[in-house]
Every structure is written in C-alpha cells, then in structure tokens.
C-alpha cells in the first residue's frame, strides 16, 4: 500500500531512537534528535506559512546536518522538497527557485552567504528558515519583503500536526539539465519513491547495523537512495566532508561503511591513484554503482578491494526514480557479458517494464539496437509546468496502453528474456560528465547568449569509459575571448558543465547535409588534445 516517503524514518525513530541516523563530519545525530529537529522546522512551516502553493519547500544546503533536517521537515510538513546546491552559480539556483514557485526555504549556515545574490530579482515574499542562525535581524532589515526565522524563532515541536500526503503527491522536485539552457524540474511522487525504497530494502536486507555512504549532493536523485533506504530500517547515513570526497578510501575505512553507493567515476579515481588495493575495504557488504556506465575493470578491481561485498550496477534516469534496472557482477560470468568493457545494465526491477524501440517507437527484434523505454510504478509525474517536454518524453508506444518514459539511451535488446540489457550510448547530445547528467544543448544555449557569440557547439571531452571527463566548446563570433566567455558561463553553469576549453573558430565545420559536423570537431580534439 502506498504511503508517505518519510514514514519509514518515523517508524525507525520509534524503534531505534538512540541509534545514529546521520553522521556529518564527526557530528552524529540519533534518530530521536534528527526527528526532533525536523519536527521543529515542520511545525514552524505549519505555523508561519499555513497555506503554501505550490506545496514545496526548498532546501538550500550542502553536506550539513541542516540539509537532512530540511528534507525531512519539508516532508513532515506535507511538502515536496526542492534541493538547491550552494556550490552552483547563484543565477542557476535563483532560476530553479523561481521555476519551482517555492515560497518557503530552509537554509544552512554556509548557504546564507549566497542569500543576497539569490534574492536579487525575487519579488514573491519568502519564508526563510535558518536553523543554524542565532541572529537574523540583518537579513530582515535588508530584505523586508521576506520573513526570516532563526534558531530562536522555531516553533515548539508540540505544535506540529502530522499531515498525510496523497500517494501521488510530489515527494521531491528535482531539476536536471535542459537543452534550452533552462533546467527542467522532474516531479517524483511518494508512491514512486516508496516502491523503489521497498524493493531496495528487501533486496539488500538492510538492518539497523548498516552504515551507508552518502556521496551524492541532494540535487542528485541518487541521494534519495542513501537517505530513505537507510532510514527505512534504522541504519546510519554517513556524509563525507568535501575533503573526504576526494579521499574515498579513507572515508570507507574510517566510517566502517557497509553499503557503498557512488558513480563509477569515484572507482576510476581510486584505481588511478592506486587506492583500490585487494582487501582494502572488508567492511563493505554491498557496493553499488549508478549514474554512468560502469567499466568492467572497475567492477573487477572493486570486488578484489571489497571481497565481502556484492557489486551491482544500477541504471535509471531521474524520470524513473533513482534506478529501475540492475545487474549483479559475477566475476566468472560477467566479463563475457560486457560490451566493449562496459558492464550491462541488467534487467528491470519487479513491476517495471522495458521495451526497446526504433525511431517510430515500434519494438525492435531481439538482438537489435534501439532506444530504451520504461514504465511502471516508478514512472515520475513528468516535468513541472512543462507540458510540452512532458508530452515529448512520456509517450504511449504503438500497441501499448501504458505511458512509457523515453530514456534517450541506446541499448541492445536481449536475445532471451533472462539476458541483460546492454547499454550502448545516447541517442542525443546528452552526456554524463563525472556522473552528472548534462545536455550539451544547455552549454551551447548559454554560450550563444554571450555577447559576440554567433554559434556554439559543445562536445563531451575527453571521452572516458564512463562518459566524459568534461566539456570542450567551439564558438564562432566577433571579438570573443576564451577567458571572458569562460568566466561568463562559469557564473551560470555548474562547474562540471563549464567548458574546460573554448576554441574560437572562424566557422564551424559542416557535413554534407549542412549540419555542424561534430565528428570533424572530435577529430580536431583528437589531433590536438
């Protein structure tokens, strides 16, 4: 039966009140403590903003206790949470805030530094909850249209009235890269996430003894796995500091992790620096990878480094709620099932259904290549306030009654029902840059907005076994300078999307059809890396 996403946490807070729920940089909060903090903010939201439309609360925080508290508080309030990342440029965060329509926001200590920039141009009155701030008077004087509440202004937890969210209401609204240059908000319902969480908890036999890595920022939907799968069974979520992010081996050992979940790029990084040594991580019992193609050599080396763990490759776009297919690595069988050194994405989760189609959305024959379409209870609700792009991506193929999501991923159709689906690449110009999903069109759109730029093409480069290491752009125009362009787009795009190099050309190469010849641009990069 469908239920609210946070119900698992509440149950664990009753069963395991004294067990650790989160660890952030050595600071540990037990379930009852995290629960009390979240309830206090939820009560404040209820008290100070009784009617909020749309029913969202933004959480502007990064790797802090308040980021977790904010997520739970939004859900306790009956709102969907909208994660915002202070490491992103302020313009981007403001765009997300405006597009979501949020009028309530929870802000952690570090993120308050950006509030002045974020609030430029926001006319709608906001309720700003700052649980880490003792004094908020200065903000109130500077921004009189908004209401600021600090730690002293939070409501008593006794005021909180539990609210029930309908199963199809939005649990989180998560913005992903959009080809027009404007991020699109994916609406994910409580029922979709709880379906995912229930399956994961059962499959991995999670208990209160488990300790999960929390490698992902909240704006990456894979973070929902760490939080809600762990909290469903009273386990602890261990969030590394920014420093530990670049020392994952130490993080695993010092935190005695039992469940590891990351993009494969982290494994690639560890292997390259010589940190993936045999039997290095005996505490791990599950090693899960998602977010980009998993290279077979990383899976092999990880099995040796974490000999007590099972390695699984998870696959799924945000639109299908975190992950919807999986493949278990078998040291004997799997190497033969890999395609050019890439681990298959496996078979769909129970109740999820996949079809592989041609350009006309007709199913291809077994063994043929086509686009992967997926449906089932984890299908998201579409894009927030964007009917056009929702209609384009959520379709009903020939002969089907259900709505499927077009993943844009090219796969090989299995010959037999038990064979794994093999990932081959993208059907469009989307790339994974270090696990981050990026529409190259977004980079191009932002570049074209800059003064003097006539045309722009972005390429994922250098290519890696997992996707791309970064972005290189080619532009034409008058009086354009690379440094100026880089600084300008750096103020708009997240760091992973900012081109590491911008080559200014007199004209872009065209193919016989008069379209930009991306192959020729790649050849230029290969000739002069």
């Amino acid at each position: 039966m469908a239920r609210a996403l946070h119900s698992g946490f509440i149950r664990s807070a009753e069963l395991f009140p004294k067990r650790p729920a989160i660890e952030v940089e050595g600071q540990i909060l037990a379930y009852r403590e995290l629960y009390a903090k979240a309830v206090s903010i939820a009560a404040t939201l209820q008290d100070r903003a009784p009617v909020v439309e749309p029913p969202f609360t933004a959480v502007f925080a990064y790797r802090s206790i308040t980021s977790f508290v904010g997520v739970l508080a939004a859900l306790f309030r009956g709102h969907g949470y909208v994660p915002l990342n202070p490491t992103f440029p302020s313009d981007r965060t403001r765009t997300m805030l405006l597009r979501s329509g949020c009028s309530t926001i929870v802000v952690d200590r570090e993120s308050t530094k950006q509030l002045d920039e974020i609030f430029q141009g926001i006319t709608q009155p906001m309720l700003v909850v700052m649980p880490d701030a003792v004094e908020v008077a200065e903000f109130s004087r500077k921004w009189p249209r908004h209401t600021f509440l600090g730690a002293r202004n939070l409501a008593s937890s006794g005021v909180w009235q539990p609210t029930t969210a309908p199963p199809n209401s939005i649990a989180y609204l998560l913005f992903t890269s959009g080809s027009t240059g404007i991020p699109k908000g994916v609406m994910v319902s409580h029922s979709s996430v709880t379906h995912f969480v229930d399956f994961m908890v059962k499959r991995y036999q999670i208990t209160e003894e488990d300790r999960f890595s929390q490698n992902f920022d909240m704006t990456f939907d894979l973070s929902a796995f760490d939080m809600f799968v762990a909290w469903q069974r009273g386990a602890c979520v261990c969030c590394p500091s920014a420093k530990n992010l670049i020392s994952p081996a130490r993080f695993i050992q010092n935190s005695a992790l039992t469940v590891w979940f990351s993009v494969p790029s982290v494994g690639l990084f560890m292997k390259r620096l010589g940190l993936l040594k045999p039997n290095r991580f005996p505490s791990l019992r599950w090693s899960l990878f998602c977010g980009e193609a998993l290279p077979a050599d990383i899976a092999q080396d990880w099995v040796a480094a974490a000999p007590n763990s099972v390695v699984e490759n998870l696959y799924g776009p945000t639109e299908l709620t975190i992950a919807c297919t999986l493949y278990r690595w078998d040291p004997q069988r799997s190497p033969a099932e890999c395609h050019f050194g890439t681990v298959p994405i496996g078979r769909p989760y129970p109740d999820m259904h996949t079809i592989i189609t041609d350009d006309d959305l007709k199913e291809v024959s077994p063994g043929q290549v086509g686009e992967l379409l997926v449906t089932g209870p984890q299908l998201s609700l579409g894009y927030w306030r964007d009917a056009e792009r929702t209609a384009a991506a959520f379709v009903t193929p020939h002969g089907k009654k259900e709505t499927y999501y077009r993943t844009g991923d090219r796969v090989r159709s299995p010959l037999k029902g038990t064979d794994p689906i093999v990932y081959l690449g993208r059907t469009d110009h989307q790339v994974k840059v270090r696990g981050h999903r990026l529409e190259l069109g977004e980079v191009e759109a932002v570049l074209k907005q800059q003064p003097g730029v006539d045309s722009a093409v972005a390429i994922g480069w250098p290519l890696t076994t997992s996707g791309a290491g970064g972005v290189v752009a080619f532009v034409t125009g008058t009086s354009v300078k690379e440094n100026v362009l880089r600084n300008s787009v750096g103020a708009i795009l997240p760091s992973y999307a900012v081109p590491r190099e911008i080559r200014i050309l007199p004209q872009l190469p065209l193919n016989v059809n008069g379209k930009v010849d991306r192959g020729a641009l790649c050849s230029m990069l290969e000739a002069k890396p």
Partner: protein
Amino acid sequence: MSPIAASEIRTFILGCLQGPLEAKGLCPSSVPDDFDLSTEGIIDSMGMVELVVALEHQFDARLDFDELDPESLTVIGPLCRYIEKRIGTKTSTAQGFRAMGQE
C-alpha cells in the same frame, strides 16, 4: 644524476593549475605550503586524476598514492614532498626516468 626536487614538482603542479588559481585571484608563486587544492575549490577528483596523468607524463613515472596520508593528498606541500620521495632520487632529468617498484 640530479634528483627531481619538490620545488620542481610544485612549479609544475601550480603551472597546470594556473587557470583555476588565477580565477580565484591567487598567484601560483605565492601559494603557501599548507594550501589545500580541494577545500579551496581548485581541484576535484577528476581534476586530481588529470593532474596525476600530467605528472606521470612529465616525470615519466607511475605514481601510487596508497602510502600518502589521505589528509595530505591535496595539500600542495606534503603532496609535492611525497611525489619527490617516490620519484625524486632515481633520475637525472625530468624525462627518461622510470620509477622502480611501483605498479
């Protein structure tokens, strides 16, 4: 035979990172020994991999950071001294050198 000094490694690393350092208003020559490339937002994990690849190419060595205190991995002074220790005593020039006993 002249060993590669930590100062030479430091100059090379900061030269590789000149762009991001200058973008933050920092002069490569004035970066202190305890400057942390990660917490200062100069480098992330993929940038670290690229830096290691560049170092290996420049000094013709295969680097392994398993024995480096993880706290020091991205701190410029200890990082350079570790690399110096790993490769510095076994070559006469920056090129034409192969570190021994490493994978």
